């Protein structure tokens, strides 16, 4: 059998200009009274993609999902699914199914009946329903619980029933609204991988709404980061992390150190930046930042080295005081207070078992990083 990874490895229709978009949001706006939940948003999702909408609560991600499901109609703009305009099509006629955040399992029906609900509605013959339900129960490993009512199940089991019910009809698109929100951390991590496998096995398009960036990074092929009803960036998890498009995206996903400054000199590719109190930063790729522009330099903690002496070969180095040390087992996080007052977060993998760290609280220390370690943000 072909491993699932091999399918996933070469999957990148968003880079293929010939790829046909599957779901298209075209300048969609949704207003609730005076409040604009989604503001002139355009977005393209491809078939078989695992797409995540990531954002803080109230950013409009759930509204977007509900518009796709048909529970809300856009105030303006169009939503297309496989080329078909969804406007005016009620939820019960859309080839999409949703897994609700609260699971919304029917409390008066057994697990079996819950899963069969949509199939019966479709008018599927009873023997086929039975077969499909058995298949779904096997898929989510709940064969032994077919006759139970939802209140007799644990949270994790209910989540699986909700999942089985929403994929039973083989929808074109599965919408998942915070699918793992109600599970504890350990179960959540396990379920993330199960969801990914399931998506590959069934070959469905998944659109998942989440506020948990780790969840989005783990599961999704691409992530749309949303804020105030607008999409800030759509990219693969690695791009979002390594090449954030704006200060907002950089600080929303993962930890980041941001140096505000000015471009004092541009070279062919790179630039020399000047920050507050004499901080000088040399960058290899400054993008489209022009000389004199107010920009931000963003660098992830794991890309900063902390040492007691200035490394001889360092292109960028700054001196400061070890302000805080957090030993996390797999790595150690340092907070270094630079002489200009800024606190920089740096993390170091604990690759060896040495516990006698030469650096300790209130030591003078140097932070250093390569010219290609961070990105220049103009927005």
């Amino acid at each position, binding site marked *: 059998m072909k491993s699932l990874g091999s399918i996933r490895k070469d999957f990148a229709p968003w880079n293929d200009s010939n790829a046909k978009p599957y779901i298209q949001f075209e300048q969609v706006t949704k207003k609730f009274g005076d409040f604009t939940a989604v503001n002139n948003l355009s977005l393209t999702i491809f078939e078989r993609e695992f797409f995540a909408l990531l954002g803080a609560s109230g950013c409009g991600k759930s509204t977007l999902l509900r518009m796709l499901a048909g*529970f809300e109609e856009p105030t303006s703009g169009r939503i297309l699914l496989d080329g078909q305009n969804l406007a005016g099509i009620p939820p019960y006629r859309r080839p999409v199914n949703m897994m*609700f955040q609260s699971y919304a399992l*029917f*409390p008066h029906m057994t697990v079996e009946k819950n899963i069969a609900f*949509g199939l019966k*509605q479709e008018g599927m013959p009873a023997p086929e329903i039975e077969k499909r339900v058995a298949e779904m129960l096997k898929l989510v490993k709940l064969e032994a619980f077919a006759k139970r009512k939802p209140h007799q199940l644990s949270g994790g089991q209910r989540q699986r029933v909700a999942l089985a019910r929403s994929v039973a009809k083989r929808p074109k698109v599965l919408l998942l609204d915070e699918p793992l929100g109600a599970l504890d951390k350990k179960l959540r991590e396990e379920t993330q991988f199960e969801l990914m496998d399931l998506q590959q096995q069934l070959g469905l398009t998944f659109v998942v709404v989440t506020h948990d960036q780790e969840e989005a990074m783990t599961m999704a092929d691409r992530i749309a980061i949303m804020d105030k009803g607008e999409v800030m960036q759509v990219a693969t998890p690695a791009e979002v992390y390594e090449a954030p498009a704006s200060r907002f995206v950089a600080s929303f996903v993962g930890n980041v150190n941001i140096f505000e400054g000015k471009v004092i000199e541009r070279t062919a590719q790179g630039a020399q930046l000047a920050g507050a109190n004499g901080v000088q930063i040399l960058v290899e790729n400054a993008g489209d930042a022009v000389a004199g522009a107010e920009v931000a330099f963003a660098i992830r903690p794991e890309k900063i080295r902390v040492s007691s002496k200035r490394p001889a070969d360092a292109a960028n180095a700054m001196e400061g005081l070890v302000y805080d040390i957090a030993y996390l087992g797999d790595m150690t996080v340092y907070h270094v207070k630079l002489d200009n007052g800024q606190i920089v977060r740096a993390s170091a993998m604990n690759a060896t078992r040495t516990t006698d760290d030469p650096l300790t609280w209130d030591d003078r220390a140097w932070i250093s990083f390569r010219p290609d370690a961070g990105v220049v943000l103009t927005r």
Partner: protein
Amino acid sequence: MANSTLTDVAAHASAGKSLPARLMVGITRRLVIIVPYVWLLFFFLVPFIIVFKISLSVTAIAMPPYAPVLSLKDGISALLSDLGQLSFDNYVWLTQDALYINSYITSVVVAAISTVLTLLVGYPIAYGMARAPASLRPTLLMMVILPFWTSFLIRVYAWIGILKPEGLLNQFLLATGIIDSPLIITNTYTAVFIGIVYSYLPFMVLPLYAALEKMDHSLIEAAQDLGCPPITAFWKVTFPLSLPGVVAGCLLVFIPAVGEFVIPDLLGGSQTLMIGRTLWNEFFANRDWPVASAVAVILLLILIVPIVIFQNAQARAQEAGR
């Protein structure tokens, strides 16, 4: 033995209190449970036993109007011989006169029809209230309860003014030209149905509202998402989940409606034969307390059946609603 002593000691130690203190806690706990039982004993069981005893007696032109009157005044043997005189003759009598059987049947049928009508009127009201904006709901709830602020009797009398041949309804219908001659509504079963539906509507609406209001709206969305048009979603999800409210509402209407006296008497007139009126006639017109008591005891037995169903339904709903 040693074992039980050990557990006793352990229990004592774990309680962490002296023996008298623990005894006090035990007594207070029991007192709390005893209170409702004492209430039931004095206000339900004792009166019922008195009524039941009267139903086994015979009428007498005396005060009280039945014999024998049980008393310990003449000693134990007199009491025992009095007890020997009690008989079930009145119950046999109830089965022999068609009046009683017909009254019972009519009452149950009228109450059942009224209950269904009340459900049909009450469900949309409760549904509308539960779906109304949260800020509006207390006002709507108040409006349902508001009629209770006026005397029940006055409200039923008011319906005579509305329904009588020269009443408001007929005046309106004649004036608008919908009818040519006044409708005869008063002194018919129609008037009784209107009266019962009107009077008992809040008892139907409140439990229905309680059941519908706590329902998670995402269940309806889930049903629609899985392919149900709104009406199917209602019958497959909303209605089954509101069943505890439906059962509670129906019983709260059905039980008092069976024994209803005021509404059939005022609105139904002499035409209507309901057990409440029959009971009243036996007590006050015929002064036949023993037969009247027998009628009351049988009525209670008829009503116990739905009450038991209600209790079972509630127990099941509590189990399911966890």
